[in-house]
Each structure stands twice: as structure tokens, then as C-alpha cells.
């Protein structure tokens, strides 16, 4: 390597130095550190004692951990597709030529700007079984159904009943569809008009245009939104933590991996065990992202690729 090459390499490193320092100090070091600490009995204050795979063995036998893992996966499985479909449909609606389009775009985006703490407190009241707005809207419909079918249907105690607590949290998450909706909207604007014009000439229906033009052209955006939503769902913490007042919800129905990690790290002083949970979560997200990438290679179409 010549002196000029070395100089250019040095200049290059100088340009990426801020990122590099951040990556080494704030990502790589903590990652390696937690990798080591996950094999230790470590409480932050007492010196770490190496215990080999004991934390992982304990994890594999810990029913509460598996409950938290199950809740996390279930929440992601319901929340991600629901959020994607809703945000996509909203984007389609708000992309149409309708009056006051800008106003509606703002209205639908605004809730996603709400801080998570406010969101959690607001939904605590919306989902209140006795006084909540959600049940106030549901009750007349349930009453009519009950009268018609002769059943006894009543509005659920969302956050007190383990059968409905997760569904309540999913509802809460719908308020966040503003972000992916905006990204979908941006993607929709990028779909070339001439494709729709050609389809019109060929006599394609609206559904056919959606199926064969919009969806394939938006596939990179769907993929991006999907991955981001997946990561967000696997790291869900603040809203259920506040809604359950730092607890787990009825029958631990609102205990997620991130909450369980936090409990072990800062409430039970089991930082080593918490590191093992963190690494499991990391591996889970990594595997799912790789699977999504593999699937995307067949279904995601990049313009010009």
C-alpha cells in the first residue's frame, strides 16, 4: 500500500471516526461485555463470578421466561401484520384524491407523536372495564348481539382479564400506525404513473392494479416497515410496564422478554441472568430478521434491480 493509499485510508477513517467510536464504545463493547457477563453470577455491585452456562441452563428451565417469550412472540405475530395492514390501508386512503387530504394525513399521524408514557396512561383509561370509552362503544353492539342470539355477551375487563390483556395492548399499539403510514405514503408517491396508465389501457380493475402494481412496487417499503415493526414488537417495554404499574399483568399475560430482563437486572439484581435473557432476545430478533431477509429475496422487488 502506497503512502497516498495510507493517507486516503486515514482520511476515510477520520470521516467515519465518530460512528466508529460510537459503535465500539456503545455497541460492540456492551455486546461483548454482556456476552461474558451472561456466563457469570453478577449483581453489578459484587464482583462477577464465572459460572459457565448455568444462567442459560436456568433460563431453559424457567417457566416465567418461557411465558414471557411466548407473550412476546404472540404479540409480534398479531401486532406486526395488523399494524402493517392498517397502516397500508390508511396510506392507500390518504393517497387518494380526497378533500382535506393534508388535514387527514396530519390527524392520522398525530397520535404516533404522543410520548409512550402518555399513551399508556391514556389507554389505561380507554380500556378501563367499567368506565372506559372502548367498552362504552362496545356495549350497545354486544347488547344487540346478545338480544339477537340469546347469548350473554359482556364487554371485557381488558387489562384485568388474562384472556384480553394482550389484545388490549395490541389495540394500544394501533395508535402507532402513523409512522409506517407516512413511509407507505412516501412509497406510494414513488410508484410510476405510467404503470397504472398502461394497466388502465389493458382494462385492469382496481384490485388487479393493487395486486400487480402497487404491492410489488411497494414491497421494499413493506419489508422495511415489517422489519422495523418486528424489532419494535420484540423490544416492547414501556407501555405494558406502565400499564401494569411495573408488574406483569394478570397471570403474567403482559410480561414480555424486555420486561423480564429489566426485572432481573434492576429489581432482582441478577444482572448475569438478565444478560442471558438479552442475548436470547438478540438471537431471536437476528434469526427472524434473517428469515425475513431470505423470504424477501423472493418477494421484494427493487426498481432497477
Amino acid at each position, binding site marked *: 500500500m502506497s503512502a497516498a493509499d495510507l493517507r486516503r485510508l486515514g482520511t476515510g477513517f477520520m470521516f467515519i471516526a465518530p460512528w466508529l467510536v460510537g459503535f465500539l464504545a456503545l455497541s460492540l463493547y456492551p455486546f461483548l461485555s454482556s456476552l461474558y457477563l451472561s456466563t457469570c453470577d453478577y449483581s453489578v455491585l459484587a464482583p462477577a463470578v464465572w459460572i459457565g452456562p448455568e444462567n442459560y441452563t436456568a433460563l431453559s428451565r424457567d417457566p416465567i421466561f418461557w411465558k414471557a417469550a411466548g407473550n412476546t412472540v404472540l404479540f409480534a405475530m398479531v401486532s406486526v401484520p395488523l399494524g402493517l395492514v392498517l397502516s397500508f390501508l390508511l396510506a392507500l386512503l390518504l393517497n387518494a384524491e380526497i378533500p382535506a387530504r393534508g388535514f387527514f394525513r396530519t390527524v392520522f399521524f398525530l397520535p404516533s407523536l404522543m410520548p409512550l408514557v402518555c399513551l399508556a396512561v391514556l389507554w389505561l383509561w380507554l380500556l378501563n372495564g367499567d368506565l372506559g370509552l372502548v367498552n362504552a362503544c362496545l356495549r350497545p353492539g354486544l347488547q344487540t348481539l346478545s338480544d339477537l342470539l340469546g347469548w350473554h355477551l359482556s364487554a371485557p375487563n381488558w387489562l384485568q*382479564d388474562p384472556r384480553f390483556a394482550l389484545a388490549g395492548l395490541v389495540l394500544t399499539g394501533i395508535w402507532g400506525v402513523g409512522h409506517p403510514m407516512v413511509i407507505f405514503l412516501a412509497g406510494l408517491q414513488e410508484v410510476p404513473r405510467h404503470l397504472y396508465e398502461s394497466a388502465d389501457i389493458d382494462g385492469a380493475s382496481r384490485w388487479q392494479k393493487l395486486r400487480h402494481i402497487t404491492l410489488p412496487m411497494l414491497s421494499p417499503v413493506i419489508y422495511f416497515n415489517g422489519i422495523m415493526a418486528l424489532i419494535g414488537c420484540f423490544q416492547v417495554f414501556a407501555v405494558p410496564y406502565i400499564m401494569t404499574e411495573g408488574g406483569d399483568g394478570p397471570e403474567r399475560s403482559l410480561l414480555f422478554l424486555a420486561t423480564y430482563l429489566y426485572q432481573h437486572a434492576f429489581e432482582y439484581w441478577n444482572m448475569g441472568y438478565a444478560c442471558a435473557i438479552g442475548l436470547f432476545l438478540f438471537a431471536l430478533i437476528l434469526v427472524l430478521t434473517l428469515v425475513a431477509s431470505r423470504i424477501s429475496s423472493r418477494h421484494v422487488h427493487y426498481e432497477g434491480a
Partner: protein
Amino acid sequence: MRAVVDDFNRSQDRIWVEFSSTSHINRKLMLSIGGGVPPDVAGLFGNTLAVYAENNALTPLDRLAREAGIHGEDYVPIFWDICHHLGHLWALPSSPACLGLVWNKRIFRENGLDPDRPPASIRELEQINDRLVRRDAQGRLQSIGHLPSEPGWWPAIWGWWFGGDLWDGKRITLNSPGNLAAMDWISTYPRRFQSRELLSFRDGFGNFASPQNAFFTGRVAMVLQGPWIHTFIEKYAPPGFEWGVAAFPAADAATPAPITLVETDVLVIPAGARHPREAFAFIRYVNERAAMEKLCLGQRKFSPLREVSADFFQKHPNPHIRTFLDLAKSPLAKHVPPLTLWAMMESDMKQAFGKVWSGAAQPQPALEEVQQHLQAEYENHQRRWSRLADTLQRQWDAP
């Protein structure tokens, strides 16, 4: 506390204490000690002393207390006990409390009950409870005498009033007969009122610190509470709210003394504190009678010291403060077990309570599940602790 700190700063010119009020002190102190920049003095909850001590995060105070002439005889016994762990003194009390049955006298009177006679046993409590149940035209619960889930802050300790305990010094005893009897009592609620109805009823309660608090609105007539309730009654209850305080009744009416949970905030010197002697001078000052009474009057608590000024109770705004103090002095007053896994025990017992309360589990399997989990965790902890115990004990015993 700020007023006491100001008094201390004015009382001498050698030490200056900077007061900082901090939320989530338990977690923040852990991180500050871990980061090597702890404060010289910190206020903690007494039930976290075990976990801090066993993690070598505190300075033992035995020698400093001895030199300062502070002895166990100066305190109501249980507070001295709370401040000890593994044979060492780790803290001195600052602001104590205990629990009693707090009842709404107006509701008693309006329902033909003697407003000055609280229930003397769980059986009587339930008889009163049945008498105070009110429903609306649709049959929905409107008010009740007592609800173990309101406010539901101590789901782990109901067994105490039934002769149970959580730990016997060697093993976890959540499945002991007393705890099982308490859970059986809890399980009568979903059977009598339907768990769905109970959940819906409780959903209609407002926040604790609000005029919609179920006790202040009369929806629940008797609650398990501490002396702090007075502050909230003054602020949120309707004018002229009449209330009384007594021991929460035991299952066995012949129980020789009141049973209660005693808690206290404590002052500690974190390990690595730069000015331990100066820190202790401040702790000692707070534990002098005048300063302690000023602190406890300000926080509407009773004093943990055995000797109290003649006018302390006269000046105290809480008319029932003497009752709370008497409860704390009871020979059957208890504190939570000094276990590092107390937080986990609390969380597990909350789940067990929730399952029984909702009718999702029977008392015995619910308790067996948490017993098994916590006993395994306890054994794990004991195994890990044995690796450090000798070294740390030698370090703490060193002169």
C-alpha cells in the same frame, strides 16, 4: 427531610449536607455505587437492606454506632431489628410506618353498626362485609365492606393474620398452613361475588391519590393502610370524613397481640462513600430525638425512638398516630423477611393472589407453584452466597 438537613447544616460549621430528592432511589443508588460515585448518605427502604448488604454495597455501622453511644435500647425493638442483617448494623431508621385496619365510621353508623367497634376477627370482618354490600338495580356491586385487593399493595403477607410466615430462617414457607388458610379466605371472594364482577367493580375505582379513591368515596368501608393515609384523607376525602384505626383482625380472635407489617425508610452509608464519618455524624443527628420528631411530624409518621417528647402526640396532625405506634410495638409486629429475593417473592405472591382472586387457580396449587419457584431460587442464592460469605464476613468484622 430538607428542613432537618437545613437544621443540621446550621447546627455546626464542619460538615455541609447537600439534600437531593430522588425518585427510584433503589435502582439509582445501585448504579451510583457500581459506578464508583455514591453519595455519602442515602435514604433507602428498609426492605432493601438485605440485598444491598449481601452485595457489599453498604458500610457496616456497628463501630460508628458504638462510638456514638447508639444502642438498640434507644429504639422500638423492631426498627433496630430491621436495620440489622447477618449480624451487622447497616442503617438507622428515618421514617417508619406500620399497617392497621382503617375504617369509615360514617358507613358503619349508617348501617347500624357501632362506629367505634372495628371487627375483632376475620370472621367478624366478613360478617360486617356482608352487611355493607350494596348493589344497584342491575345487581352490580356498588359498595362493599372490605376488599383484599384494595389497595392490594401487600398480597404476600395475608398469611400473617392466619398464623403463617414467608420464611422460617432456613427455607421458604409460602405453602405453610397459615398462608394456605389466607389464600382460602381470598378464594371465598370470587365464589361469593364472581371474579368478573369483582374486576369490574374494582375497575371503577379512581387513583389512590385522588378524590375518587374507593375508600374516600365510600365504595370500600375498611382498608389495610398505614399512617400516610391521613395525608391523603386531608387532601382528597370529603370534608368531615370520619375514620378510625385499629389492628387488622387476625383469623383467630384469641391472638394475644396485634399483627402488623412494620416498615421504615432508613439512612445508610454506601460502600465507597468518601466521607463516612461525616455521613454518620448526619445520621446520628437525624436519630436524635428532636430531629427525628421534626422529621416524623413533617412526614406525618410516628417516631421509631423508644423515648418520645410529651408534646409529640399533641402536635401530631394525625389523630390516630398513637394507635399506629402501639401496633408497631406489638410483640407480633413483623417486617418482611430479610431476603435478597424479596422483590421476586412479592412479584410471585402477587401472581398467586391474582390467580386465586380471579378464580383461575385453587389456593393450594397457586401457593405450591410459587413455593417451588422461590425455594429453588433461594437455594440458588444460598449456593452463590456461600462463595462470597466468608470473605465478606471477614471484611465486615475487621476493626
